[in-house]
């Protein structure tokens, strides 16, 4: 009987600990300096006025890189793609690309890439993508 009472009281104590004591941090949804930096190297502006042309160039670049295009939302300028990477297919890379007009003659392209569900934060990776996209946009 005392054993049961002890377990029961233990549960109450645990529950008391879990409610109200933790509060989400104030800066949960605010932009930090690191996030701004990541955003800046994930984004690049190209001198293209046609969103459809930019979309095709993005899709073409992704296919050249061996990505599988999973989803396209043309009016929004959104492309989602993924590929397995590595010799033993040990990794899974996902990419979301957003294309939106910037002014009358430019398009802003933003890429978010994940490797094994973790965000890639290495600027070199994004530079490589934009180099491939540049070729796809202006060489065809």
């Amino acid at each position, binding site marked *: 009987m005392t054993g049961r009472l002890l377990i029961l009281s233990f549960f109450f104590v645990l529950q008391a600990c879990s409610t109200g004591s933790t509060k989400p941090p104030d800066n949960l949804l605010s932009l930090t300096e690191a996030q701004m930096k990541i955003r800046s190297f994930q984004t690049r502006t190209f001198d293209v006025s046609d969103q459809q042309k930019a979309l095709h160039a993005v899709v*073409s670049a992704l296919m050249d890189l061996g990505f599988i295009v999973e989803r396209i939302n*043309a009016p929004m300028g959104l492309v989602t793609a993924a590929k397995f990477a590595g010799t033993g297919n040990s990794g899974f890379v996902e990419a979301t690309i957003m294309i939106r007009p910037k002014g009358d003659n430019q398009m802003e392209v933003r890429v978010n890439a994940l490797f094994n569900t973790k965000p890639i934060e290495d600027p070199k990776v994004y530079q490589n993508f934009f180099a491939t996209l540049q070729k796809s946009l202006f060489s065809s």
Partner: protein
Amino acid sequence: MKFFIPLLLAVLLTSCTTIPKPETFFQLTPSSSKYKALQSRVIETSKDKELLSASAAVLQDLGFQIEESVIDAGMLRAVKERSAREYSQEMGRFFIFLVGLFAQTSIIIPVDLHQQVAATLIIYPEENSTSRFNVRIMFYRKLWKGEGSSGNQSIPPGTQTMEMINEPEIYRQFFAKLSKSVFLEIHQI
């Protein structure tokens, strides 16, 4: 000796799976342009909807189910499910099992059980042309392995791998069927 073969197998298996460098994910390889040429054709037509529906018809003829279609981006995605059992893999599994018996242990390596063959197709007008469309298709497959065991250690089923299909013949066949299908679709035969 009893532990030697499972150990060797484990070492061999881990040596196969190297973690790739993220910098290479978005880098073109020397074979990228070769694959692009393999996957692309120019079709003489000005009717994008008809071209897309003719492409869907060819994929259906080949046993694919259309999973996604986006007309304003000229995109189709189709899949078909098939068994992935292969005689050579079964023989390899049997051979390894025999080797295991000599070492007084039981090794059953997982073999491919199921596959999903998929295709992503994109059409887009050729630059400065209203009567020519580029068609690009990419075939690939996802494979699922069955279960296995090494000694008392069981290997769970469901390991997934993916590979691109780069056989020129498959792409040639698809485009041959597509040009016929486009002709029939446009002339409403």
